[in-house]
């Protein structure tokens, strides 16, 4: 991977003046992805915070071609652009190499855009789909999505007397769903580990076929923490086992960063206001269950990657 010094000499492709909240993870992710790309890009983006805040008419923060589409069809919109590019190339009307990246939030990917994503993976388009996962519909006011972690309070999974735990159901594991499509390259990344993220993006863009990266996107408003803490909290997600960093290349699992000793899952819960209610005495059982589940998931992943499980 090129050094930060080298990367900083490249042209900045996302301008300032976009209207995402202060401390938003989505634009950190986009900047890191755009610095990783070596070829000209075409971007599509599902409705969501990123799309709404970066392209408020008549402004666009993107210094590259950007297609605005509806909530459900970021993947299919871009698959059309990619098919047109292949056709033009075959006809000799275009000779440069262009890469395609579709963005979607967790709402636009886990829920609303799932069938479009599945279609793209099955049809085998040559594009990268990036899901920036902040774990709820943040743009419309923090409604739960199928990516919201169990136990999180959102405006549609509020904490109350009848339901003291917030969201009752565990989150969907989208990365595994994409792996099941036999995509040639699937990965999970985190902007706090920018080296790892940039490497994965470069690998995905240089892989023929439909590739996918699921990226954790810290959200100060929805997760309830102070805006300056975004990177620390993103880091904690990986250190506590909530967001393991791994890649699956042609079916072969590899853990790209494994903390020497996993930090207690409780630290992850303590770092954010959306989990605050879980720390009370009456929710002790739920926390213990979540801790057990994280450990089980970790061991499952370690087994898939052929690594020894942690003794702790």
């Amino acid at each position, binding site marked *: 991977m090129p050094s930060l010094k080298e990367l900083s000499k490249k042209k900045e492709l996302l301008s300032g003046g976009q209207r995402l909240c202060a401390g938003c993870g989505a634009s950190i992710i986009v900047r890191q992805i755009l610095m990783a790309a070596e070829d000209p890009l075409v971007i599509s983006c599902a409705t969501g915070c990123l799309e709404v805040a970066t392209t408020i008419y008549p402004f666009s923060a993107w210094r590259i071609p950007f297609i605005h589409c509806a909530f459900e069809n970021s993947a299919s919109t871009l698959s059309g652009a990619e098919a047109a590019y292949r056709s033009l190339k075959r006809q000799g009307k275009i000779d440069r190499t262009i890469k395609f990246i579709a963005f979607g939030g967790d709402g636009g990917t886990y829920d609303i855009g799932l069938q479009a994503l599945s279609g793209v993976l099955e049809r085998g388009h040559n594009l990268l789909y990036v899901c920036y996962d902040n774990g709820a519909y943040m743009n419309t006011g923090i409604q739960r999505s199928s990516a919201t972690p169990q136990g999180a309070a959102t405006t549609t999974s509020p904490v109350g007397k009848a339901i003291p735990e917030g969201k009752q159901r565990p989150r969907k594991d989208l990365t595994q769903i994409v792996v099941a499509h036999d995509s040639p390259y699937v990965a999970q990344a985190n902007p706090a580990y920018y080296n790892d993220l940039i490497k994965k993006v470069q690998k995905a863009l240089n892989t023929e076929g439909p590739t996918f990266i699921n990226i954790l996107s810290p959200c100060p408003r929805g997760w309830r923490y102070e805006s*300056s803490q975004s990177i620390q909290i993103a880091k904690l997600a990986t250190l506590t086992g909530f967001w393991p960093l791994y890649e699956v290349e042609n079916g072969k699992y590899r853990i790209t960063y494994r903390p020497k000793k996993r930090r207690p899952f409780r630290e992850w819960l303590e770092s954010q206001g959306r989990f605050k209610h879980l720390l009370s005495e009456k929710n002790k059982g739920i926390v213990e269950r979540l801790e057990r589940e994280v450990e089980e998931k970790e061991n499952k992943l370690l087994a898939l990657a052929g690594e020894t499980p942690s003794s702790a």
Partner: protein
Amino acid sequence: MKEKGWKEIPLGGLILEAGNAEKYATGGWRTYRPVRDEKKCNDCLLCWVYCPDSSIIVEEAKIKGFDYEHCKGCGICSAQCPKDAIEMVEETKFVLQEKGEQ
């Protein structure tokens, strides 16, 4: 910006000037302003790679300062600086300072 009539708007509502969001100032959102101590800074560029608002000005791999037109004052740069070279200073301090100078 002057509002356009429908005849002046490009077909399909296209935005023809890529990256024109930079004309929109988001610096007014700030309550705390990042201020860098040049002596402590070693140009590691971590603030630059983590800035959500493309607001760390870098030339030839050296940090030149902040883009206060667009910096929203989130404080990530200050929190991530390994040399403790970025301080978040209350914005009112600068406003009062400017007033005093007038």
